[in-house]
Each structure stands twice: as structure tokens, then as C-alpha cells.
């Protein structure tokens, strides 16, 4: 949290400073109020008191009340502004930081966690700053000031207040000491319930097919029982809190008056009146003190959650991205569209095993290179090295004759049309998705988009959609099917007019026919563009200029379909599992 506080800028510090002044003013006014009350008490009890005096004291009281409210308003105003502007800045810093991350940092944190850090955690911190400024600073000032005010007015009363305070804090601490761990456990148990329910929902057909409804119900019941037991414990604990606090407060007033009776009775005549007014006022102060302490306790309860959030935010902000931008903006002349891997090896930082080892090959302009291998053979990782999602551990990768690390990321990205395994869609329209991004040239026109969609075999379904190219796409593309998404994502790469296509298993979601037609269209319409294709299906890649077969991170075969069928065991095995011998036309 301290680190977050250090991120306040001078404007916010100034606002915080002004808040502090007004907090002190507010406390002063709050504590002044009972003073006038004491004055009034004395007036009523003094024989021959003046009515006008009472009105005057009342007027001051009113001023105090209004003044205190005004001060609180000012403090609230600044606190809200500071909280909002800190969270705005933190959010923006986080967003920019995450944007600069490579796949490596992202997978270290996980996307889901980064999202929570940028949303929920920030809200938590904002809440703490806003509340904290108002309560955390005010409560101790209030408590200390009020204590000094009453300290001189009677040891017995002070002692009674002290005892009440001690009891109150003790009760709250004990209750929370007991139920806090249970609260933590509750999250786990709730997750448990969620998991079992989700399990049942995703496996609905299996559950029914195996007549296992009762089995699932029993499991749910057990988890439900656990959760309920814990919730009973915590809510009973919390139930004790309120009545106890009420009791303490009422008890304290009673004690002050009761003690007061004895004190006044034994005092000499002159002091009696002062004592009486002190007594009435003391109960007001005592309440203020108790309230202040309760606020402090609340903050201590709230604090740990926000602290965890602050820590999580800092973790992200303090992470330095591994990818460092180069300076070149263009490649060597005459080498456009060439991709060269030169003894490239890759392992994840901290891992001992290589994912890729000693990979060398080169692809010329307009050629198609395909990568095939079983899951875990490293084929996706390999092509992810080209757009620098990761940097090679050893060796170098050249695009247009220049090491990819020497380009500015923007320049490198302008050369690439990348289609990921999982189709990513953004909220917007068909054309905003297809014409997505910036390729260093002017924005895509409607005819560019239409042409790209046409090549990606999407014209038919897009023109059936309401609004056609301006048809709305929901967040995550949930309103169109998987195959349609895939075609739009391919259109996006085409629309970019890149030098190099990278298809990371992008054709598997398409049926054979669409797959084939699409690839023919690509070949025809975008001749001269280099393609790197990762695929599962032999049919997708058998016409590639060069097929690279990977097994456990190493190249075990390189060549054309025909060549590999005769010379590469792994390739033949894969081919045979998909097609029969006569189909392979050996």
C-alpha cells in the first residue's frame, strides 16, 4: 500500500493536505459541540440564568454542526477526487504495462489474473483511499483529542470509558479472530460449490447417460453441508456483534450517570454544578471516542483485503517486459518476404528443458512452409517466435534479412498477418474487426474489407447478416459461429496486406471443403505473400512448398509431401492415421 501511496502526484498531495486541515477543523468542531452543551446545562441549572445566553450557545452549536458538515463535505470532495484520480492513473498504468508485456509475462500472471488486477483490485484500492482519507486519519485524531478533552474532567469517568472501550475492542477482536479464518475458508467452499455445479452442467449429457444424477446430488449435498456449516459459524459470529455493541454503549451512559451521582453527592457545594454539566457532556464525548475506535477497528478489518490488492497491482507494475524494442523500420532490399531461422533454440525462462532445439530453415518470398507434429512438438511456439511473442533463447530469426530483434515492433508487425489458434473477435462491426489495427498505411476501405472477406470465404454469411459489413459483433464474437469467426479472423489477416502470413492451426475449425476453397483463393489472390502454416490435417498442408516435421522440439523431416512420405517415419505415421494408402496415392 505504501508503494501505491508513493505514486500520488503533487496535485493529489496538495488535495490530501487540504483534506487534513479540514479533517482537523471537523474534529475540532465536533468536539466543540458538547462544550456548548455543557454551557447550556450550566445555564439551566444556575439559578437566574439568562434565556438569551442559551440562544447564543444554541446558535454556536448550530454553527458547529453546520461547520462540521461543511468540513466533512470538503474532505469527502477531495477524498473522492483523490481516490478516483489515483485509480484512474493506476488503471491506465496497468493497462499500458500489460500492453507492453510479451506472452511470457502474460502467461506468468495468467490473463484472468491480469484482468482481476486491472478491475477488482483497483476498485478495492480506490475504496480504501477514499474511505481511508476520511476515516483513517480522522479517527485517531478524534480519539486522541476527545481523550485529552475528557481526561481532566474526572478520573472515574475516564476509567469507565476506558473499560468500555477495552471490552468493545476485545469483543470485536475475539469475534473476528474466530471468524476471519472461516471467511477465508468460505471462499474455497464457495468455489467448491461452483465447481461441482459447473461440473454437473458441463457434463449434463454424461450425467444423464450414466444415470448418475444421484451421485452428483450426493456430491453437491456434501459440499453444501460444508459451506452451510461455515456460513452458520460466521453469520452467528457476526450476529453477536451488534447487540453487544449496543449494550456497551447504553451501559457506558448508564455508568457515567451512576458514577456521576456518587461524585456529585460527595462533592462540595461549589463543584456540584460543574460536575453535573461535566457529566452530561462527558457521555457525549465518550460516545465520540467509542465511535472513533470502532472506525479504526473497521479499517483494520478492511485493510488486509485492500493490501492484498495493492500488492497484486504493484507486482504487475514492477514487472519489466522481456521484449525490448529495436530501432530499424525496414528490412534489407531484395529480401522482402524471406523468413530465416538460424539455429534457433527456445526454452521458457527458468525451465530446464528446451521447447525447441536447433531449428534452421529458410522460406523465400511467396513460398508456403508448413509445420506439423503431435501436440507438444513445439510447432505453435516456433511460429510465435516470428512476431516476437517470445524471443529465441539461442540463434536468430531473420525477416527480410534482418534479425527480428532489431526492428521496432511496429515495423515488424506491419509485415505480418497473423491468425491465431483461437479466433479473437472484438466488440464492434464486421468491418471494424476485419479492418482491425494499423498497418502503417491508411485505414482499410470498405472495398478492402469486402475483398478480404471474399477471399476468406465469408461473403455469403456476412451478406446474410443484418447490416452486412456493419453488422454488430458482440464482445468475444458470441453472436457468430466458430467457423464464421475463423473466416473473419483470416479475412483480418488478408486485409492487412502483409508480406508474411502466419496461420497458427487456423484451418481446423473449417470443414474440408471450405478449407480447400479458401486456400485456393488465398493462393490466387495474394500471390507473392509468404505463408507459415501450422496444421493438424495432412490435407491442409500436402501442397506446401516445404513441410517441416517436428517431434519433441526438433526437426525430424524437411521437404515436400511426396519426399517426406518416403523418407520420414513420423510424417508417414501421421499421414497414415488420417488417410488410407490409396488416398495418399503413394
Amino acid at each position, binding site marked *: 500500500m505504501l508503494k501505491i501511496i508513493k505514486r500520488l502526484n503533487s496535485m493529489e498531495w496538495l488535495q490530501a493536505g487540504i483534506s487534513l486541515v479540514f479533517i482537523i477543523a471537523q474534529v475540532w468542531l465536533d468536539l466543540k459541540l458538547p462544550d*456548548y*452543551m455543557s454551557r447550556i*446545562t450550566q445555564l*439551566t441549572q444556575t439559578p437566574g440564568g439568562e434565556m438569551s445566553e*442559551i440562544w447564543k450557545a444554541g446558535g454556536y452549536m448550530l454553527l458547529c*454542526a453546520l461547520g462540521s458538515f461543511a468540513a*466533512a463535505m470538503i474532505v469527502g470532495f477531495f*477524498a473522492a477526487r483523490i481516490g478516483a484520480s489515483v485509480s*484512474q492513473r493506476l*488503471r491506465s498504468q496497468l*493497462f499500458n504495462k500489460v500492453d507492453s508485456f510479451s506472452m511470457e509475462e*502474460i502467461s506468468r500472471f495468467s490473463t484472468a489474473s491480469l*484482468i482481476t488486477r486491472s478491475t477488482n483490485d483497483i*476498485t478495492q484500492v480506490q*475504496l480504501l483511499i477514499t474511505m481511508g482519507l476520511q476515516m483513517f486519519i480522522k479517527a485517531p485524531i478524534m480519539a486522541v483529542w476527545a481523550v485529552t478533552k475528557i481526561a481532566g474532567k474526572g478520573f472515574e469517568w475516564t476509567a469507565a470509558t476506558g473499560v468500555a472501550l477495552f471490552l468493545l475492542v476485545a469483543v470485536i477482536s475475539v469475534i*473476528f479472530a474466530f471468524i476471519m479464518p472461516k471467511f477465508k475458508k468460505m*471462499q474455497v467452499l464457495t468455489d467448491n460449490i461452483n465447481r461441482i*455445479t459447473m461440473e454437473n*452442467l*458441463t457434463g449434463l*449429457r454424461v450425467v*444423464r*447417460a*450414466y444415470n448418475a444424477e444421484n*451421485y452428483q446430488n450426493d456430491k*453437491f449435498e456434501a459440499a*453444501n453441508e460444508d459451506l*452451510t456449516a461455515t456460513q452458520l459459524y460466521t*453469520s452467528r459470529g*457476526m*450476529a453477536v456483534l451488534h447487540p453487544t455493541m*449496543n*449494550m456497551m454503549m*447504553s*451501559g457506558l451512559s*448508564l455508568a457515567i450517570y451512576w458514577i456521576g*451521582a*456518587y461524585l456529585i453527592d460527595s462533592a462540595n457545594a461549589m463543584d*456540584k454544578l460543574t460536575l453535573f454539566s461535566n457529566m452530561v457532556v462527558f457521555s457525549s464525548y465518550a460516545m465520540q471516542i467509542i465511535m472513533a475506535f470502532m472506525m479504526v477497528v*473497521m479499517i483494520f*478489518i478492511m485493510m488486509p483485503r485492500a493490501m492484498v490488492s495493492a500488492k497484486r497491482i504493484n507486482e504487475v507494475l514492477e514487472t519489466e517486459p522481456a521484449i525490448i524494442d529495436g530501432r530499424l523500420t525496414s528490412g534489407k532490399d531484395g529480401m522482402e518476404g524471406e523468413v530465416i531461422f538460424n539455429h534457433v533454440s527456445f526454452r521458457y525462462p527458468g525451465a530446464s528443458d528446451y521447447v525447441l532445439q536447433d531449428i534452421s530453415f529458410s522460406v523465400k518470398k511467396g513460398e508456403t512452409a508448413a509445420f506439423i507434429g503431435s*501436440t507438444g512438438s513445439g510447432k505453435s511456439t516456433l511460429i510465435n517466435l516470428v*512476431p516476437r511473442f517470445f524471443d529465441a533463447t539461442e540463434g536468430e530469426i531473420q525477416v527480410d534479412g534482418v534479425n527480428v530483434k532489431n526492428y521496432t*515492433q511496429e515495423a515488424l508487425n506491419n509485415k505480418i498477418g497473423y491468425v491465431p489458434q483461437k479466433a479473437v473477435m*472484438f*466488440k464492434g462491426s464486421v468491418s471494424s474487426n476485419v479492418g482491425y489495427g*494499423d*498497418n*502503417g498505411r491508411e485505414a482499410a476501405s470498405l472495398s478492402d474489407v469486402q475483398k478480404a472477406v471474399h477471399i476468406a470465404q465469408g461473403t455469403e454469411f456476412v451478406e446474410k447478416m443484418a447490416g452486412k459489413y456493419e453488422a454488430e459483433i458482440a464482445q*468475444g464474437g458470441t453472436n457468430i459461429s466458430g*467457423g464464421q469467426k475463423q473466416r473473419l479472423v483470416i479475412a483480418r489477416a488478408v486485409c492487412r496486406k502483409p508480406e508474411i502470413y502466419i496461420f497458427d492451426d487456423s484451418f481446423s475449425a*473449417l470443414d*474440408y471443403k471450405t478449407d*480447400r476453397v479458401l*486456400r*485456393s483463393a*488465398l493462393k490466387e489472390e495474394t500471390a507473392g505473400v509468404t505463408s507459415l502454416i501450422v496444421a493438424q*490435417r495432412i490435407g491442409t498442408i500436402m501442397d506446401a512448398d516445404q513441410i517441416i516435421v517436428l517431434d519433441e522440439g526438433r526437426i525430424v523431416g524437411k521437404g515436400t509431401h511426396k519426399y517426406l512420405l518416403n523418407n520420414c517415419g513420423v510424417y508417414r505415421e*501421421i499421414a497414415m492415421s488420417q488417410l488410407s494408402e490409396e*488416398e495418399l496415392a503413394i
Partner: protein
Amino acid sequence: MSENNVRRNNQGPMRSGHEMSGPVEKPKNFKETMSKLIQYCKSYLPAIIIALVAAAAGTILQIVGPDKLKDMTNEISKGLPSLIGGVPVMNSIDMDAVADIAWLLVVFYAGSMLLNLSQSLMMATVTQRISKRMRSDISRKINRLPLKYFDSTSHGDVLSRVTNDVDTIGQTLNQSIGTMVTSITMLFGSFVMMFYNNWIMALTAVGSSVIGFVLMMLIMRKSQKYFAVQQKELGRINGHIEEIYTGHNVVKVYNGSKDAKKTFEEINSKLYHSAWKSQFLSGLMMPLMGLVGNLGYVAVCVVGASLAMNGTISFGVVVAFMMYVRLFTQPLSQIAQAFNNLQRTAAAGERVFEFLEEKELINEDQKQKQLYNIKGDVEFKHVKFGYSPDKTIIHDFSARVRAGQKVAIVGPTGAGKTTIVNLLMRFYELDGGEICLDNIPISQVPRENVHEQFGMVLQDTWLFEGTIRDNIIYGKQGVTQEQVVAACKTVGLHHFIKTMPEGYDTVLNSKASLSEGQKQLITIARAMIQNAPLLILDEATSSVDTRTERIVQRAMDQLTHGRTSFVIAHRLSTIKNADLIMVMKDGDIIESGTHDELLKNAGFYAELYNSQFEQAA
């Protein structure tokens, strides 16, 4: 369903005041839901009523407090010097009287605390029990609803009813009903007590509080507006963050960062403005409450003092009113909050009851016919079906499958291949015609009995958190360890399982790293243990890579041996030897026959089959 949605309600032990003053989701029909809720809680009603009576009684004891404190103050002030006929007279305090009142108050306060304590304990217990029952009922309901319901509802939606909505009910019900009763009692009690003591003072106190509250309402209405804006902007920015983070790769490679940042900063700055305004306004509630309290306090002091001076009232009354003002203002805001909470309860309750009232599967207890020891003949007789009544997709399909034959269902993605599975398993009911197993229409036997005849392996390998053994046996009675081992040996899993730390007792959870292929083998072993005469394999190998596929394929060949099997396949090479191939397109079965027959027909199948070899021209 995003992670955020599920977590939206996970509050810590203390809900902060800020969250409380947010806009409240309004139920569509408050009264109806509440009466349903009361109906639902019927068996707990006596307990609830006792708790509420205790709450009221406890509050009354608390309200009498200041009145007694007044008597005490008066007793004490008797001991103050006073002027009688211009001569100061010394009086003394009647300490016995003071002690009597004090002890009485001790009893009152203690009694009040006990009553309130028992009230909150009872309410806490009752609401938790009700929540538990709701969760159980929802969970059971899941397994009694037709699949149709789930095919049109997102899982996240059902999930959020089990957790978020039930949680909301548990929390708000607990807080709202008790608070409502104590607050109302407190409000009326202190109102009555104030007028009982002195009407001028009472009017002063009530009047000043009302002025304060009108102020508060105005601000609250205003802050609701900003709160709604803030929630909207927060939703937008969270959506944007989610979208950009999940698409990070694409955003980077397409140089979309600049655009994304621009949009982000735009929303972020809007959020800043609405955030500080709503925070500021809702943050005003506390000081405002203080002001209302203070206004009452000042008014009571001044008016009280002037009345006390001319002897209309005793000073004790002033002391009593100083407390009554607080007792009176406090419940007003609590009632508003409790009412908000009740609305939340109703909104959540509405969703829960809506789910619980969904139409269930028809009860089939009266169906006497049973399938027993069947051979595995399947016949489709003039089958007609559509997912919605107005759109029939399978018009009139007939076919015969003899026991032990292999039926393949093929077609492009989205052609409705799983429809056949849905119909065979009676997940959906036919609109016309019949499906018969060994000449018995499956609609004439109970659903469970139909399910018993099938083993099933699906594309999405479904394993649950539990031991490997439990996953394989899955609900089947009387399976021996030997049978499990035998099944695993057949599918080639035994050796792998032996290498796991706990063998067959290894718990499968997110930490256990099983490959897709191994998971699939477990589900095949599960189908094997089931030992049913018919088998459904729905794209069982499409999520594994080709080399693993051969292992899985081998296991499946073992499984299909001697069973009537329905195979849905992506790769046509695996089903060429099927006895019957059904070709589906746009939901309907457009061709059927053997591989050779279909090729000869040169129809859709032939086109589909040939397309996989053609080179991209």
C-alpha cells in the same frame, strides 16, 4: 461466462457503506416473489416470528432506557443547589433511588441485549438453513430439467443462481427482516416516548430530523444517478480490459495498441468523472447523518433548556431527549437500507424461483415396460423432429440397424450431427415417428432405462474432480477392482495409472496433468465398465492429435466390438467401413447408405469425401 461475473458478489465480512448506497436492482414483482419466499420458508415461520417478537421486545426495553435515565438525572439534579425563595438551599441526592433506577436499567439493558442476541442468532441460523435448502433444490432441479432448457441458457446463468443469488438472499434476508422490525419498533417507540414526555420537545426533535431527511433523500436520489453512470462506465472499462487482454496477441501484432489505449483512456476519463461524483455524493451520507443527528441535538438542547429554565420540564427530560433524538434518526436510514435489501432479496429470489418453477421432465413412474437384456437392434421409423415446434429439421427418416452394426453420422460442422444422439438418448422427444430398440419404442420405457442401454464417449472429455477409479466406475453399482483394471488394460491405460502417485486412487483435479488423449482413454474405460449393448461415440478423437488418435482409435475398436455403435466423425477415413452412413446437412439427414453406395450416388457425401484430397488449385 467470465470469471468476473461469478465473483461479482463475493464480498468480504464487512460490506462497506459505499457499496450499500449503490443503485438497487428492482424485482419485477416484489409482492409475488415475497409471498413465494414466505411460502418457501413456511417451516421456519414460527422461528422467524419468535425472533421478530424478540427483536421488538428487545427494542422496547432499549427505548424505555432514556426515560429511566431521565428519572435518574432528575434524582441527581435534586442534589444540586437551588434557589428557593431567593435563598440557596443545599439538597442531597437520594442515592437509594438512583441505585434503584440504575439497577432497573441494568436489567433492561441486559434483557434487551439477550433478546436482540437471540433474535440475530435465530435469524442467522434460519436464513442459512433456507439458503442451504435453496442450493440443494436448485442443484436437484438441474438434473430434472430437460436438456432443451440448458441448450438455450448459459451455464453461467444457472451457476450464478446457485451461488450469487442464493448468497444475496442469505445475506440480505438476514440483515433486512430483523433490522426492519427493530427499526420500525424503535422509530415508533421513541416517537411515542417523546410525545409521552413532552410534546413541544417531541415536535422539535421530529421536525428537525424530518428536515434533515428530506435533505438526505435529495442527495441520495442525485447520487443514485451518478452511481448508475459509474457502474455503466465501470462495466465498459472492465469489458474493454477483458477484451484487450484476452486478445493481447492480436492487438500487438496488428499494432492495435494505440487504438486500444485511446479507447481505454476515453472510458477511463469518463469513469474518473462519474466515479468521484458518485463516491463524493455517497460519501456524504455519513456526515449528513451526523448533521441530522446534530441538528436534532441542537434543537433539543436549546428548546429543552429554555423549557427547563421556565420550569416547564425537568432537566432529565432534556437528557432523555438527547438520546431519543439519536434513537429516532438512526432507524430512519436503517429502514431505507433494509428496504433496499429486501428489494435485492426479491430480485434474487425472483431468479431463483423462476428457475425452480421451470417445467420439469415428465414423470415416468407409471411406465411399466422395461428394456432388459436387449440384443441391440435399432430402428428409426418415420422420425420427425425440430428443436422448435415451428421449424422441423428432420422430416421423415427411416432406417434399420441390426445388432452389432456400426452406424456413422457425418456432415459439415453445424449440420446437427448431435441431434441423432439427443434423440437416441431421449434427451429430446420426437415430434413424430418412433425409435425402437429391439422393437420396443423408447418412448414407452422410462428414460433411465433407455440410458442404461448406452455407453457414451463424447468429444469433450468430461472428468470430474475425484479419483481415477471413481471417474471410471461413475455411479455404477457393484463394480470390482478387477473389472476396473481389466478395462484399463484393454484401453492401454493401466500402465500409465500405475505410474501415478496414488495409482487408481489418484485424484483428478486441475493439478493432475493428464493429456487430452489420456483423458479420452479414461472416458472410454468408463464406457467399457458400463458394458451397455449400444454405444455412442461423438467425435471422440477430434480433440487429440493424430498420433494419440491411433491409440484412442485402437481402444475404441475394442469397445465397439460386438456392440451396436453410433459414430459421429470428422475424419471420413475412420468411418469408411461403417455398415450405415447417415449424411447430415442443415439439420436434416439428406443421404444414407454404405460408403460405396454413397460414392456411387455422387451426392453430397462424395463431394465431401473427395474434397479432402484435392490440392488447393
